[in-house]
């Protein structure tokens, strides 16, 4: 699949923003005062909104994007839009109460966390639902998206928050655990994707043409000499060239560095700046991971080309 920068940016940024909103909703201790409340809300909301805005850039008709809110009964993309807006409205309310009264409403926070998680789940299901892309068509896809949103959101929240210890466990151990869970899920995902290909559905050029029972089928001639929308969008192969290197980069930037920094932070008495550096590293790693998510995915249509 063609890795569109706007969509990669969208899933990574709004993932982190929603991860942070999730943790704020659960009541992660934060600096007090209206200004802090405002800036923190602006950051979490801003990341989410920036991601959502970017996702509209790859639309052919962004001015009609509002129409995408109508089919939530059947479409995951529509659900994602509806949930994202609901989450942002709830978050706006939460932030307003926080700024004005200084109080962070616990029950509203819980509802907010639920909506934030549901939004990330819906985003992942846009891809996870597609039978045509066997690499994506698995429950591990939403697991990875949720775990990455939590881990990246937590590094940022830990860098800004005031907690050293949560539920008796040092914050650095929380971030380390979130990172390990996320990357273990991703390793399982990669492992499954590498071994799956089209064998999950049993599709090949034989089933695509229905001619498999007559012998070995191979393409002799494409319908046209040039490229078309399908070959550019779905039979895209260039992005796979550096897959191995990009995986290693993703693991270093997304996992090894942030994990090390988490432990250094623990030794250094939870230095906020270390968490923030870890966050930036992880985002870079996630860009590589997300690029591969698209570039390595093979679409059933490639069986015709």
């Amino acid at each position, binding site marked *: *699949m063609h890795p569109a920068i706007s969509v990669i940016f969208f899933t990574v940024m709004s993932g982190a923003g929603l991860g942070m909103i999730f943790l704020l909703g659960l009541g992660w201790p934060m600096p007090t005062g209206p200004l802090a409340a405002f800036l923190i809300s602006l950051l979490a909301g801003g990341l989410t909104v920036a991601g959502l805005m970017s996702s509209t850039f790859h639309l052919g008709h962004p001015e009609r994007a509002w129409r995408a809110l109508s089919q939530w009964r059947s479409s995951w993309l529509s659900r994602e839009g509806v949930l994202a807006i609901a989450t942002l409205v709830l978050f706006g309310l939460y932030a307003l109460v926080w700024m004005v009264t200084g109080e962070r409403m616990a029950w509203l926070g819980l509802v907010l966390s639920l909506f934030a998680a549901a939004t990330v789940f819906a985003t992942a299901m846009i891809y996870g639902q597609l039978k045509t892309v066997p690499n994506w068509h698995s429950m591990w896809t939403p697991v990875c998206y949720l775990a990455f949103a939590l881990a990246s959101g937590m590094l940022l929240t830990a860098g800004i928050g005031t907690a050293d210890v949560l539920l008796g466990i040092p914050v650095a151990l929380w971030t380390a655990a979130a990172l390990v869970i996320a990357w273990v899920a991703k390793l399982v995902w990669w492992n499954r994707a590498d071994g799956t290909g089209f064998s999950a559905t049993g599709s090949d050029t034989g089933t695509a*043409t229905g001619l498999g029972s007559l012998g070995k089928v191979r393409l002799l001639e494409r*319908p046209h000499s040039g490229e078309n929308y399908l070959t550019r969008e779905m039979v895209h192969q260039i992005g796979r060239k550096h897959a191995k290197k990009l995986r290693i980069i993703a693991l270093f930037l997304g996992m090894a560095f942030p994990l090390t920094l988490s432990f250094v932070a623990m030794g250094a008495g939870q230095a906020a700046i270390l968490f923030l550096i870890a966050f930036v590293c992880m985002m870079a790693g996630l860009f590589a991971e997300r690029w591969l998510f698209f570039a390595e995915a093979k679409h059933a249509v490639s069986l015709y080309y």
Partner: protein
Amino acid sequence: MTSLPQTTGKKLGLVIDLDVCVGCHACVVNCKEWNTGGYGAPLADTDAWGDNPTGAWLNRIHTFEITPEDAPAQIVHFPKSCLHCEQAPCVTVCPTGASYKRADDGIVLVEEDKCIGCGLCAWACPYGAREMDPAENVMKKCTLCVDRIYNENLPEVDRTPACVRTCPANARHFGDFADPDSNVSRMTAERGGMDLMPEMETQPVNKYLPPRPKTRPEAEGMLAPAIAPKANEGLLGWIDRALERLG
């Protein structure tokens, strides 16, 4: 609503005969010609006369080679357009309601004014039957020539999809699969009409007729006894004997 209808009154679709298609691309051209002036936005091309022409087409012909284990390879020309699936995944993923399947005749259409050009429906279709228009940025797909088949301004003979009407080899047939006595249902039953990628569970309406089995050169054909020259019988035998006698 992008939910699929429980069932459709008619099941309009095509039978494509892979035994007959000669790969001339006439249906491709006639499809483009009709549909660029018909339903919705024109089918644009970019760089049409340049080095890298590309554009939106609703019907394309691929050519495959089949190599049986025990016989020489054979060529099959393979036309492909929307199969108007009963369980169309392209419809249910659409966030705007632009994509829909008609409850009365089962045709899958895009209401272009509602389409935001997100492309998700093209990702959901296993067959590559949807292409984004490069100029209008809306999703284009086969309409089964909905603006021909019911069009009373056209002579009756033309009230059939453009591809079917133009095919010089008669490899494409249009009809109602819900009627077991229709031309398309009978052909499908007789020739073992098949679904493409049934494992994708889309339940395509369009059916493909497989190429008929070829006579194998090594196998004894029905006409073989008549063709093989026999030098000791009939006229040939007489001439043979006469020539022998001449010394």
